[in-house]
């Protein structure tokens, strides 16, 4: 109910107490902001220009280079050839565990091609990071995770720009009981199982612009393939919409000791070809993945040492070190494949598309996949959860872009948009009496990463000042129309358990940024250029 003012006197006072630089100062090198093209992501594109304007106010030479996405990734990750890059991490349910996002600040990942291209390196952070990944006790781990955020925030290794809400729509005349999930919106594994048809049509139809790269569970490298396949390949446990671990194929999951986890299967589980699911299939699925060249799940499997069959329905996972995320993330992400089919396949990565087995044990069974156009699954009547499922089949229609998807949901060709709508479509969807618009916070984030190896960006004060000069709130309000929130930590506020609400935020404060720079020994030349 008021305007927020800013206090800067304190910092100014600090500046005065600094020793005066005696040598001549040189201008700070020009900064190039690498961002996506407007076509790829208009938000990141416009955002880069807004940030550039702000930095120019600090006396910096700033250029913005909108770059085709693949080139951008190459420069960012592979060559680390950048000073500042705007990129993003999508929120996937397995990333609710803090391991992944915090890992992007771990110095072990600062090598070429890995996911800490900014090269942030803080021994204290690395140490606590190691400790939390070995910590089994949730409360203790939470403390460590909170500490990690407190350690990294003042260093400003990157500016978390914003978390963008996923705004999706569904047809409320056709379905009800559609419960959105953070990071997944309505295209979660639960919606098809929970949706209640309101008409005679019991087929739930999704539409989206993303298509799976392929449907080979030993080859698929995109989240869009797995979002689909997880409906027909079952997992030992699944994560609920509230991100709690729910025993699924497993009747019980018990930690025998720090490095041994015992899983007991439900009785009467079946594959879609009527063969029973036994502990042999579980062991096979895990061993098969570990032995293969397929790397998509390697990070989840790193802690696994061996799988031991105890009896027909019981397996034990032996870990090589205590691993906090194993019982939740790993068990909920690894699909159970039928041993009797896959053991005959010698080179699963070279299967012709027509030969890829599609038998799983999930709540839905495979029906059809037309490359780039259409996919369909039917309810699996013999699944233990079948009685709870009200739809008879699930379809996914693939469109060229979000325009096609929106037209389809408007005309009733699909029931649910699997991916977010564009800003201009939202008011139209809200005005459409058949549609229900849902806004779901995301725990993925868009970030501006500084290359801490480059001159001045190795200076914490410089990074902090630049971060303070970014008006994240304005970016959210103008570019996202308020549908998102300014970021403060790699762990999003919506991920309430792990998020540390009291880390330093470096909120927008232009005067403060200038004062910080001055305090750190920077000054401005007669023509207003920043120098040190």
């Amino acid at each position, binding site marked *: *109910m*008021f*305007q*927020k*003012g800013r*206090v800067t*006197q304190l910092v100014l006072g600090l500046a005065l107490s600094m020793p005066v630089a005696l040598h001549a100062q040189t201008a700070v090198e020009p900064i190039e902001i690498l961002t996506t*093209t*407007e*076509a*790829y992501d*208009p938000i990141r*594109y*416009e955002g880069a*220009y807004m940030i550039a304007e702000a930095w120019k106010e600090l006396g910096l030479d700033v250029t*913005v*280079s*909108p*770059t*085709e996405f*693949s*080139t951008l990734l190459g420069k960012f990750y592979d060559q680390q050839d950048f000073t500042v890059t705007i990129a993003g991490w999508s929120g996937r349910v397995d990333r609710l565990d803090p391991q992944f996002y915090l890992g992007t600040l771990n110095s072990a990942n600062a090598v070429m091609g890995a996911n800490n291209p900014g090269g942030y390196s803080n021994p204290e952070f690395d140490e606590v990071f190691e400790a939390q990944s070995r910590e089994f006790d949730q409360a203790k781990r939470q403390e460590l995770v909170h500490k990690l955020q407190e350690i990294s925030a003042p260093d400003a290794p990157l500016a978390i720009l914003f978390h963008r*809400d996923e705004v999706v729509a569904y047809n409320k005349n056709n379905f009800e009981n559609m419960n959105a999930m953070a990071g997944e919106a309505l295209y979660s594994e639960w919606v098809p199982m929970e949706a209640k048809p309101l008409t005679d049509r019991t087929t739930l139809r999704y539409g989206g612009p993303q298509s799976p790269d392929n449907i080979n569970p030993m080859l698929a490298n995109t989240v869009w393939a797995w979002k689909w396949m997880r409906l027909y390949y079952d997992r030992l446990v699944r994560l609920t919409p509230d991100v709690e671990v729910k025993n699924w194929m497993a009747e019980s999951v018990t930690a025998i000791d720090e490095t041994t986890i015992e899983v007991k299967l439900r009785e009467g589980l079946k594959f879609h070809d009527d063969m029973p699911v036994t502990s042999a299939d579980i062991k096979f699925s895990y061993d098969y993945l570990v032995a293969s060249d397929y790397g998509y799940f390697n990070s989840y499997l790193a802690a696994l040492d061996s799988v031991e069959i105890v009896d027909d329905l019981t397996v034990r996972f032996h870990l090589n070190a205590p691993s906090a995320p194993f019982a939740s993330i790993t068990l909920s992400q690894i699909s159970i494949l039928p041993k009797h089919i896959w053991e005959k396949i010698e080179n699963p990565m070279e299967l012709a598309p027509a030969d890829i087995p599609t038998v799983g044990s999930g709540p839905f069974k495979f029906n059809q996949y037309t490359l780039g156009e259409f996919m369909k699954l039917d309810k699996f009547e013999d699944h233990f959860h079948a009685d709870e499922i009200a739809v008879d089949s699930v379809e996914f229609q693939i469109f060229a872009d*979000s*325009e096609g998807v*929106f037209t389809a949901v408007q005309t009733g060709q699909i029931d649910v948009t699997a991916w977010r*709508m*564009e*800003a*201009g*479509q939202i*008011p*139209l969807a*809200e005005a459409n009496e058949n549609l229900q618009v849902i*806004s*779901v*916070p995301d725990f993925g984030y868009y970030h501006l990463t500084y290359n801490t190896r480059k001159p001045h960006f190795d200076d914490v004060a410089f990074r902090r000042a630049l971060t303070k000069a970014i008006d994240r709130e304005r970016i959210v*309000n*103008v*570019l996202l*129309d*308020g*549908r998102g*929130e300014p970021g403060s930590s790699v762990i999003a*506020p919506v991920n*309430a358990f792990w*998020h540390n*609400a*009291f880390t330093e935020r470096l909120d927008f404060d232009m005067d403060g940024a200038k004062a910080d720079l001055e305090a750190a020994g920077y000054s401005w030349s007669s023509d207003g250029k920043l120098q040190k």
Partner: protein
Amino acid sequence: MISPALKEAFAPLRLMLQDRLAVVGLVVLTLIFCMALFAPLIAPQDPFAINEDEDGSVLMRTNDGWILQPSLGLVALNDTASRSGEDLIVGRKGSLWIRTADRWELTDVPVTADLNGIALTDAGAAIIVGSEGTLLLRNGSDWEVIATNLALSLNAVAWLDDTAALIVGEDETILRFDTTDNSLTPLVSPLNRGMALNAVALDIDGSALVVGERGVAMRYVPAAETIELVRLGSSRGLEDLHISPSGTALAIGERGTLIRRDGADGRWTVDKTPDSRGLMAGWINDEGKGFAVGRNGIVMERAPEQDWVLADTESERHLRTILVNDDGVLALGSDKFVIRFAPPSAQHWFGTDHLGRDLFSRSMYGSRIALLVGFLGATLVMIIGTNVGLVAGYYRGKTDTILMRTVDVMYGIPFEPFALILVLLFTPSLGIVILAVSLLTWRTTARLIRAQVLSLRERPFVKAARVAGASDLRIMYLHILPNVMPLVFLELAITVGVAIIAEATLSFLGLGPPQSVSWGGILHDARLSGAWRTAWWWNLPPGIFIMMTVLSVFFISRSLELVANPRLRARK
């Protein structure tokens, strides 16, 4: 030797003036040229400027949703207070509105700071707080400034009883103010993390509840003079707090946060929110009927025992406060809001786009790139095409074969993917667009010129020149070239049209130069934003401009065709 060439060059102009369509084309093209040249003068705005407005917006609740009322001034309204027979609104820049007999009157106050909060007792005692430590106390009909010696912003105020008020503000400022001696007592916050405190309300047990940034909540008990932290169950920033006479309470905040307490002894529970954008003010009554308003014109309503639902509002405005009294419900705002998707108006002739940019200005500037690429590209094409055609046709044999097979290769490369590769290899820029357009268009010109040259080189005057000992270069450029000039001009005109469409196509596909305004780019934005199906004002003008420009060039080319090919002239 130059004059015949010049003569040839002027011949088209004479012919053009006889052709009605060509004259139309010339006129339109000239207009568009003027548009490009004088774009900064014609365009009312910088094409990148985001149009934002501040406004004393008032929305009234009716049966058909919340309807915009005539605005109160040009600055945002921040807080309201009301008692029987009197309503007050405070806003930015020292604005105070008082409603008497259904009329809002702007009332003078002795400060110009932003006024953030106001509180009123039933007896009529009124207190206002604002930025820069502003504190005002009503004294009769005058407002007395109370010095606080604080530089930071005071955000909210609530009466504890008839003579004491609690003021909260930035940096966990908590002040107790007593009107008996106009004394200010600073109170120590139990948190001490520098959080902003945003709202305060008197609870029914006589204590005051304070909420603020990052879900901070604390309770001040006047009797015991203590402040203790309380938990409301969210770490979201809280912006406003309202407690009904019987103790039903509502705290609202960022990200659609709605925290409700049913009755004085109820537990605080986080309600399911129908929107994730920020809320700025909330109101609830004893039965649990409530309103919450926030950014981008969001209004949420709640019937007792029901979920919160979004109400119909038609505005982009940011709502900051709610005024509820016997006459009805008003939602008030609005600090700077973006004028998005505005239909054409006197201010914005072609409306505005998704970022509130003036589309008329953008369309004016858009002509520059179209013409630049059109004419520069076409000239480049002509230079390459004419020379290749001349050389191939004149020398024939191996030279011809090599050049013509190169033309074949160029024909084999599709335009859009080729442009994409260029963009990937280099970076998107105007140069790349011109390069892409010209590299893939000279092929047609080269072919046509070559065919013409092939027949010209057998003509007697060429043979004569050769016999006279003229060099190859001389023959090619002084004897043959002037004779193919009509064809070159014709091709030039057609190529200008083709190049303009090609540029628009690339921009539409998002391959155009960044941060430039082009007609294709405007359409690209329109499609990307999804608004093109309703925002016809966004869609139509750029397309019409492209069409008009290209059409006028084609009209001109048609009369050039008559020059190049006299047999086409209609014989009367």
